[in-house]
């Protein structure tokens, strides 16, 4: 079985990504144009006349046809320019460059928390299926899936910020300026998102492990007299590695989406807040820029996952 080189794999994946990026940005652009509301009205000011709004459309090129406007945006992107906010004139790349680290930090911390808590829970549940430990963990996991992130977020703020004053209630700090301060700001939102991740990791890992542990070779290992912990750590976890990687990639994508709501609750100026502001004001260069970034991130995460999966399990054909 000849394996293709990773370089070739990455190359072909990037080619496949192009239509996805085109389709996603085009659909979002179309949606923004379809929903009622018009940035020209915002740009024209508080009590604008119809004539003034028409004039604004001409000044900002908003009177051009829908396809021409999308084409113009795409042309800029092809030249590496995400253009600028129609309203405030800030470069979209600058906005995203400032917002993305805030979002990334939350997602990274949330992911670490979800794995650190979810993996032991999944393993413990799988050791004695249907035992009381398993049932307890199942219950916690169900709660984690069911509890809405924004609600948990508000409870966390009420308890840990307003009452105990341990962690800040709102805002974000730059990681490069003060890592500790940045993590303190990101911790509560990360916990709020991690609850779901923890539950998901625990449930999926339990299922995958149970399958492995009930297979023929594990029975043979038992027969050889290997202890349960050695079977688990040396053979079991190794075999669920691929499952775990897949769960992680799905989680990263889900957590990115969850930041839209969580960032609003904590007033974090991240990608989520950025796209919400852009969408509300119909400032389409911002929305397009964020969608573009999100799509690129999701494609990158999926690609890295596939490469890692292939490294862990050589049976997987690229």
């Amino acid at each position, binding site marked *: 079985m000849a394996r293709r080189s990773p370089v070739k794999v990455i190359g072909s994946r990037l080619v496949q990504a192009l239509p996805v990026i085109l389709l996603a940005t085009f659909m979002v652009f179309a949606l923004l144009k379809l929903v009622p509301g018009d940035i020209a009205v*915002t*740009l024209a000011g*508080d009590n604008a006349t119809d004539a003034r709004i028409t*004039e604004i459309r001409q000044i900002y090129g908003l009177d051009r046809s829908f396809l021409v406007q999308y084409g113009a945006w795409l042309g800029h992107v092809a030249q590496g320019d995400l253009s600028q906010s129609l*309203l*405030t004139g800030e470069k979209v790349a600058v906005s995203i460059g400032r917002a993305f680290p805030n979002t990334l930090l939350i997602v990274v911390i949330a992911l670490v928390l979800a794995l650190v808590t979810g993996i032991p829970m999944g393993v413990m549940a799988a050791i004695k299926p249907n035992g009381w430990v398993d049932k307890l963990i199942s219950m916690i996991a169900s709660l984690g899936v069911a509890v809405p992130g924004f609600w948990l977020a508000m409870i966390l*703020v009420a308890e840990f*910020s307003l009452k105990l004053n341990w962690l800040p*209630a709102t805002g974000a700090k730059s990681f490069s300026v003060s890592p500790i301060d940045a993590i303190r700001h990101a911790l509560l939102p990360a916990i709020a998102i991690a609850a779901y991740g923890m539950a998901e990791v625990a449930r999926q890992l339990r299922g995958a492990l149970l399958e492995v542990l009930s297979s023929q070779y594990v029975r043979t290992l038992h027969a050889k007299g290997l202890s349960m912990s050695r079977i688990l750590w040396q053979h079991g976890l190794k075999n669920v590695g691929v499952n775990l990687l897949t769960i992680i990639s799905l989680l990263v994508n889900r957590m990115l989406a969850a930041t839209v709501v969580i960032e*609003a609750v904590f007033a974090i100026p991240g990608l989520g807040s950025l796209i919400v502001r852009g969408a509300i004001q119909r400032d389409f260069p911002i929305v397009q820029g964020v969608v573009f970034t999100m799509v690129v991130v999701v494609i990158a995460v999926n690609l890295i996952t596939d490469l890692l999966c292939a490294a862990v399990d050589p049976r997987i054909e690229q």
Partner: protein
Amino acid sequence: MTMTTRREAMALLSGALASTTLGGRAFAQGTPKKGGTLRISAPANPSSLDPATGGAGSDHAFLFTMYDTLVEWEFETLKPKPALAESWKFTDPNTLVLNIRAGVTFHDGTPLDAEAVKFNLDRNRGDAKSNIKADLLSVASVEVTGPQQVTLKLKTPDTALPGILSDRAGMMVSPTALKVAEGGVVTRKPVGAGAYAFVSWADGEKIVVKRNEKYWKPDRPCPDGIEFSIIPELTTGARSVTAGQNDLIYQLPPRQKAIIERASSVKVVHGPTLYVFQIFLNWAKPPFDNIKVRQALNFAIDRESFAKAALAGLAEPAYMNLPKSHWAYDAEVAKLYPYDPDKARKLLAEAGFKEGTPIEIGGYTDQDSVQREEILIEQLRKAGINVRFVNGTVAEASAAFFGAEKKGAGLLSAWTGRPDPSLTYSLMFTKDAYYNAGRAPVPPELEAAIKDSRASEDIEVRRKAFATVQRLVMENAFVVPLAFQFELVAMNKKVQGYRPNLLGKPKYDDVWLEG
């Protein structure tokens, strides 16, 4: 302005002061001291920091810190008073002479002289990107008649101008900065002559300004600077104040008051504003083309209860488009529509309007708007009026009602108010005004009265002219005013000297930080 002169001014206005909660107390305690950074939770990213190109009413909270205006107003009554223009005079009805204060410079060192004022006014009324051309429509030319004097030649008499020059149109931008700015706009690099100079703006995140050390008002401003954190979620913004991450939050909805007052570290200040909830009517089509139906609607609403139920009592019942404390308020007009459901029923019968016929009125989808609708439906039902609200987003519902589509017979919305009341009336109650949804004619005497309100400079004469305008608007029942919303500001106890103002757009002129 020093404390003494302000206190004197306040003494003169003691009557008006009574209605401004905490207005007197806020500055009576302690001596202002310099230092500290005022951290403010702001609800919206500005649309632009260039006064001529921006559009949102929420921009002023930032603009006022960086740009001084030619004219200012009294906080409690909105009566115009000198600022960058230390005096003004209508030498004849078509000529306004402004004397500009000497020795003031912009943050970049450019002198604020007659040339600079002319440059700004010409830009505001002529530049393609200017959003405030309509404000200065009456100006025919701006002439420099002295090193510190400009003369405005007017096409028609317009005594609303001093009020207009207290808003965007009167915010002075450094001509030097404008000349070198890309596209001739200072959206992202504002340079004014205000109490604070611009430092930085990260979109949707933070705006930072620092004290203008050469500010012309003695001993102002006190804080070293202001940091605005932009937090669109007001509940989150309020939490940032209770948690001590910010010092002050403005534009809170009334329902936040009870919640935020539970925090011992926070005090709440409120006062009336011009912002009025009202039902706009399209009097070009049935059923509101009939004056009796419009009047019936006005009689059918219990405004006292509305203010209590919909706005937690943090509101003043509205019987016209000006609140009690405004200099042009008229107490007689306010008596036109007492709550009287029987009278409403009678008027409907006279109009031949069949009881229970559904009337479609537009509205907005947010939680607070829907609550207001529920209260109105119940009140109107008692007078035999069956209102159906059709809701959309603010942009959508407003455009459908005021724009070409002419959807619905009315719209439950609000009017934000203007520094000079003549604008409020001409924007809503003249034939081709955008906020006259039906573009239907109004009685000629109303058009004439609106014009009259701009003809004299004398405030007593203007007060009478506005009384006529208001009487005609309300007798014709062109609108259903409901309640004036209070400005609700919550702040850390170390914030001193904050006073609400009638315009409802916060100014931090006399704020200082204790400790």
